[in-house]
């Protein structure tokens, strides 16, 4: 479980994150939603230690991550997998090398064992047989799936996904969402997903935090969203005509 408690972050005079608290549970797809620029990615970067906190606590299974000693922090990081918005695959490495990278770095598996694990992860994201391709030879959806394969290669306890559906067609989006949800349930991982995609929210959102102007504005589940009377959340989720029909249908 990951707990964030009263975290705040400013860049210069601008307060981006203002006293946000939330619990991310294992075995559930925990979603952070909100408008562009509301601070979702900043929270994610604070959580994984890419930005320094101004105030507050981030607890990984009870350990306060930002104040851990470098060695202990590194140990926590080894348990983290992350799916980046653009994949962040290493350009100079093949898919096999990319997925096998955390295994190379942190395990003492034999070559054959590593290859087995890589093949398993690639098949998990439906990229079997693509081992020797380079990232430049992959489509956007394949890059995201490959990034997910790399993220799960070393059996992470925590999985972070930064806008896994951005730039994808609806069909591929669903594939990615289902993969994330399946992996979360199967391995009881604490998964944190940032998304703008309302289909994703309604499909996999089990524990949702709505960020508005850097604050935790609303929390709930996908079912509760459909009945919300929170004005800002309503304006965000049901901005499109299609979603308004969904809302009316759900109410009736």
């Amino acid at each position, binding site marked *: 479980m990951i707990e964030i408690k009263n975290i705040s972050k400013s860049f210069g005079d601008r307060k981006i994150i203002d006293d946000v608290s939330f619990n991310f549970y294992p075995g559930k797809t925990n979603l952070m939603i909100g408008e562009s620029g509301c601070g979702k990615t900043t929270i994610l970067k604070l959580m994984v230690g890419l930005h320094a906190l101004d105030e507050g606590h981030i607890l990984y299974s009870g350990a306060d991550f930002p104040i851990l000693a470098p060695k202990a922090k590194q140990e926590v990081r080894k348990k983290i997998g992350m799916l*980046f918005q653009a994949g962040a695959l290493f350009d100079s490495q093949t898919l096999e090398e990319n997925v096998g990278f955390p295994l190379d770095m*942190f395990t003492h598996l034999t070559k054959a064992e590593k290859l087995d694990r890589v093949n398993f992860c690639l098949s998990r994201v439906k990229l079997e047989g693509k081992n020797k391709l380079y990232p430049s030879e992959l489509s956007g959806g394949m890059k995201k799936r490959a990034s997910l394969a790399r993220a799960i290669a070393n059996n992470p306890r925590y999985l972070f996904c930064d806008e896994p559906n951005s730039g994808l067609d609806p069909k591929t989006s669903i594939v990615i969402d289902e993969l994330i949800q399946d992996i979360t349930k199967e391995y009881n991982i604490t998964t944190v997903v940032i998304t703008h995609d309302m289909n994703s929210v309604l499909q996999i959102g089990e524990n949702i935090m709505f960020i508005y102007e850097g604050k935790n504005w609303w929390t709930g589940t996908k079912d509760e969203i459909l009945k919300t009377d929170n004005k800002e959340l309503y304006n965000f989720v049901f901005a499109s005509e299609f979603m308004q029909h969904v809302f009316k249908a759900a109410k009736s």
Partner: protein
Amino acid sequence: MTLFFHIGRYFMLLFRVFSKPEKFSVYWRQIVYEINSLGIGSLSIVCIISIFMGGVITIQAAFGFSSPWIPLYAVGYTTRESMLLEFCPTIVSLILAGKIGSNIASEVGAMRITEQIDALEIMGVNSASYLILPKILASIIINPFLIAISMFLGLLGGYLMGISSGACTSYEYIFGIQAMFEPWKLYYSFTKVIVFAFIITSVASYFGYYTTGGALEVGKSSTRAVVIASVLILIFNLILTQLFLAR
């Protein structure tokens, strides 16, 4: 103030670069990869430049030594001294600063803006060490070999030019390049090469590592890396020359 900020951040980065690697076998593989990429990849340009440089120095020396009081073997002697002491270690390093420096800065910079460095950090890998240390070590290992080849080819270029232009005879040139040879001067040359290799790779990596923004900034980092590395090479050339050769 900006200068002190960069100096401080550069040394803090170096501190991270030289911390204990996570896994030696992975780093060793990276070093071999970088030796091939940075060293072997620069071989052709070093060869071409060295041959032409040697040829030009021979012609210039022959042109300058037109007095009958100066023996013609001085052409070979001058070519050797110029190539060994200055042209091969310094000028070739300056050219490598352009080639390798821009290559490293743009590669690391692109990794930064495409979140590949963030990915390494999140995995628990010391990204500074993993990305930069193999480049520095590879360059320190391979550059002396490149410069040794450059010295040989420079002298060969001088020989070919000297003979073909009639500036001196084969015997005079070979006698000249052997005359009054002091082996310790090679220590001076190769010390410079190693220092310059460190400057090129570490400075270029520094500018690449701290790139922010997009493709435009990667280009700017690359240019800045080459300019700063070149200036530092010239400054350290002066310092090392004063230390080794001043009487």
